[in-house]
């Protein structure tokens, strides 16, 4: 299909703008645009067709089952889209006087209260823009907390099952990374942890349940190891969908938690974002939270900037407000029954696991939480079929593949998260497909090797993409890559999470 710039014709346009009979001031010559940007030039009918075609070449949760592990691809209720587009939210300027933004401030305050209850921690900042920014904010809080106590701590411990964001955030916050391994049951290796942790340890970052979909059975002991040396525990909330109302991070011993509003609380992911990464913390960390906080003031609400120990601001204004509206609406639709959301997420995952565990290797044979990790190691060993091949073949059945090659400690990993919104029939159909694929791996391996068969493109050449690095349209000078030889070099590297 053509790029929008290849559909362009000079002098075509979709826009109409007010005609105003006023003189236009001259821009000083040295500041004036010398060459117009080559934006697309299309009529509105062409514009709509172009983006409609792009939509048909995209698979969303609206299209079908999307069991991408660690991404919590649940249904996005349409009522959330209706309410976020109410003019009182959509057309509200962030610098509007507080007395004229009371509805927005109240919504934010209510969401703070809800998240505090779910986390089991009293103080919330809604500001971080996504989970990874929540992580960085949490680590900045650790720095500020220890600096305030006159302590120099330089190390942060991260599990080897962690999302890559954890180690990346550790470095960006100016800390030194220490890795802890996973034991044979899929829990954090507590013996190794004891050796690593000392008075120089600022804290731990942990996902619980882990990216293996397993709840750490020693979580209380882990928390004690850190708290004994005055360290702090950070909860990566990527997998919170498993435990809402079942076990609260604050009760597990965590001091700082981030939420992924775009996972647990159903923000449509839009092909990559937006997200929301609010954090909840224990009392002793509250003074360091970003400004402003939303606080009640009599019958009203206001923005409180008066926090002398704050780390500052981590993004503009107050956070991704539209995401708050959707997540608030989502949680209010459940009310106290939010626990059922997590229960069904875990039920769906365990059901699917039960259907699949005889056909694929299960590295840690336990009940799972909201997701589970299988391995296609046996298929690779016996038939030369990889997790990537399994993923591609699933597309032929109309399913989005699971996350593959993650977590890194499981070879040929297939990380499957069905979420609570899927009906049993979909889980059955997906399991049937997975079982058939496992059989075809032996009998018709080419079906897998050559998959997918009916998508807009077949397997792509990632090496060419990286080497040629064509990252924008070049107009007259745009290269024709189809003239260069290509191979199916879509590689066995992490896809998802």
């Amino acid at each position, binding site marked *: 299909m053509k790029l929008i710039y290849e559909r362009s014709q000079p002098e075509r346009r979709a826009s109409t703008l007010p005609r105003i009979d006023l003189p236009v001031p001259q821009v000083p010559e040295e500041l004036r645009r010398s060459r117009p940007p080559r934006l697309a030039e299309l009529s509105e009918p062409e514009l709509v067709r172009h983006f409609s075609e792009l939509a048909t070449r995209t698979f969303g949760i609206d299209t079908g089952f999307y069991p991408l592990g660690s991404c919590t691809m649940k249904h996005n209720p349409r009522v959330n889209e209706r*309410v976020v587009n109410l003019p009182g939210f959509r057309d509200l300027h962030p*610098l509007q006087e507080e007395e004229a933004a009371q509805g927005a401030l109240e919504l934010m305050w209510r969401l703070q209260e809800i998240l505090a209850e779910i986390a089991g921690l009293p103080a919330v900042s809604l500001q971080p823009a996504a989970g990874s920014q929540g992580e960085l904010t949490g680590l900045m809080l650790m720095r500020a907390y220890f600096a305030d106590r006159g302590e120099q701590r330089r190390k942060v411990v991260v599990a080897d099952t962690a999302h890559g964001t954890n180690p990346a955030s550790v470095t960006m916050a100016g800390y030194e990374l220490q890795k802890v391994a996973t034991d044979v049951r899929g829990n954090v290796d507590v013996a190794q942890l004891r050796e690593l942790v000392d008075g120089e340890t600022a804290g731990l970052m942990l996902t619980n349940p882990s990216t293996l979909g397993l709840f750490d059975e020693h979580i209380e002991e882990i928390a004690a190891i850190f708290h004994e040396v005055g360290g702090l525990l950070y909860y990566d909330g990527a997998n919170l969908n498993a435990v809402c109302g079942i076990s609260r991070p604050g009760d597990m011993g965590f001091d700082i938690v981030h939420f992924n509003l775009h996972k647990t609380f159903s923000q449509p992911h839009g092909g990559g974002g937006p997200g929301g990464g609010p954090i909840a913390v224990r009392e002793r960390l509250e003074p360091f939270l970003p400004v402003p906080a939303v606080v009640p003031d009599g019958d009203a609400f206001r923005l409180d900037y008066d926090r002398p120990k704050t780390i500052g601001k981590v993004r503009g*204004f107050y956070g991704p407000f539209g995401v708050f509206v959707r997540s608030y609406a989502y949680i209010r639709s459940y009310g106290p029954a939010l626990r059922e959301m997590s229960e069904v997420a875990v039920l769906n995952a365990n059901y699917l696991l039960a259907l699949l565990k005889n056909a694929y290797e299960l590295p840690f044979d336990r009940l799972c939480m909201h997701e589970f990790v299988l391995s296609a190691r046996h298929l690779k060993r016996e038939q030369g079929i990889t997790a990537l091949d399994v993923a591609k073949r699933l597309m032929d059945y109309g399913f989005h593949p699971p996350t593959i090659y993650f977590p890194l400690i499981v070879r040929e990993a297939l990380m499957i998260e069905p979420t609570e919104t899927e009906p049993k029939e979909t889980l059955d159909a997906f399991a049937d497909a997975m079982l058939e694929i496992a059989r075809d791996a032996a009998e018709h391996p080419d079906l897998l090797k050559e998959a997918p068969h009916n998508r807009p493109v077949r397997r792509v050449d990632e090496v060419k993409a990286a080497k040629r690095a064509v990252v924008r349209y070049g107009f007259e000078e745009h290269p024709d890559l189809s003239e260069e030889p290509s191979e199916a070099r879509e590689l066995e590297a992490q896809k998802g999470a």
Partner: protein
Amino acid sequence: MSFLSLTERDREQMLATIGVESVDELFRDVPEGVRFRRELELEAALSEPELVAHLEQLAARNVDTGRELSFLGAGIYDHYVPAVVDAVLARGELLTAYTPYQPEMSQGVLQAIFEYQTAICELTGMDVSNASGYDGATVAADACYVAKHVTGRSRVVLAETVSPQVRQVVKTYAPGFGLEVVDVPHRNGVTDPDELGEAARDAACAIFQQPNFFGCLEPAPDLAAAANEAGALSVAHVDPVSLGVLEAPGAYGCALAIGEGQGAGNYQAYGGPHYGFIAARSDYVRRMPGRIVGETTDVDGRRAYVLTLQTREQHIRREKATSNITTNQTLLALAGLVHLSWLGPQGLRELGETCMALAAYAKERLALPLLFPEQATFKEFAVRVGRPAEEAIRAARARGVHPGYALKRDYPGMEDSLLVCVTEKRTPADIDRLAEALAA
């Protein structure tokens, strides 16, 4: 619950397949000591009609720009969002897709990101853009992280005329990066290139904003040259809506161009979610943060798009990644692409000219002393109202007009100054109303 799809019968069958008696049993790995024993204290569930009514009530307590004639800007702008943006964003496939990890499932969104990257490169005169950053403030912190690694230097220079939101965020991030932040004060509303150049000696980068926070046009080419001569990366923070009439940062030698995308395609939304953009010369492509889409071919030689140069990113490079960003703002950036494609080059220029013409009319019509009378401006300008700014705001709002932003909130000393913003949605008649409201 309407979002769940299991019947009681389903549940029983599924539990039997798993081989457990109850859902509770599925949680047996959760230690007793950390189990939550009561019900969550949340307000009762709302049905869909009740939920909508509740949120309508909250929304009604906000005074949005449809209910009050607004001249607020200061970084978030009431530009017109075309209907076609809403239509595209309502497409379920685009709305509800995850990050395009599997290219065969995601050619549409990958191509859209490639087209967005192209639009940002064209606007800014740069070679490479990522798929978006969180907002116009965090991309400035991203730029500092790029500059730190490219130059090995440990100071960043920030013009005082850069948006306070941006400056605060840079100052929050800087200590973790091991960077010290140096401010360059404004001289009469703009930045002096000699002062910026002096401060940029031994600095990793120098960030300035065009048009700046006061609405004034900076001597941007001279600022970029001063930073470059000092061996620092020159970083321009620009308004995409201005780039039909104002020069592209790439054309005056900037290393990086960043900005808040909101004005192109996004509603004000009380400050977010929006998108930040970051674009660079090709020299810095390997230091860029976040997702980048590249062109390639499939096995049959068909053109295809895929996430590329991923060894920069956290999932591969982990603690050495160029950034920790994962989730970005693709949907909002898509809105930007649709808006910019709706405008086209001609529309973007007309939009800029319309804003400038209306702002010039407003300057004249208000007949108030300008805070920086010597400086050329784009769509915003600062006036002195001869009394504390919040008094003027209160009085004007009583007449249904929000006259602008009180600069003293960020610049102590500018007690009587108001930053007025005029977009293409305001009319000369609206501006007459503003003049009357401020004269009251």
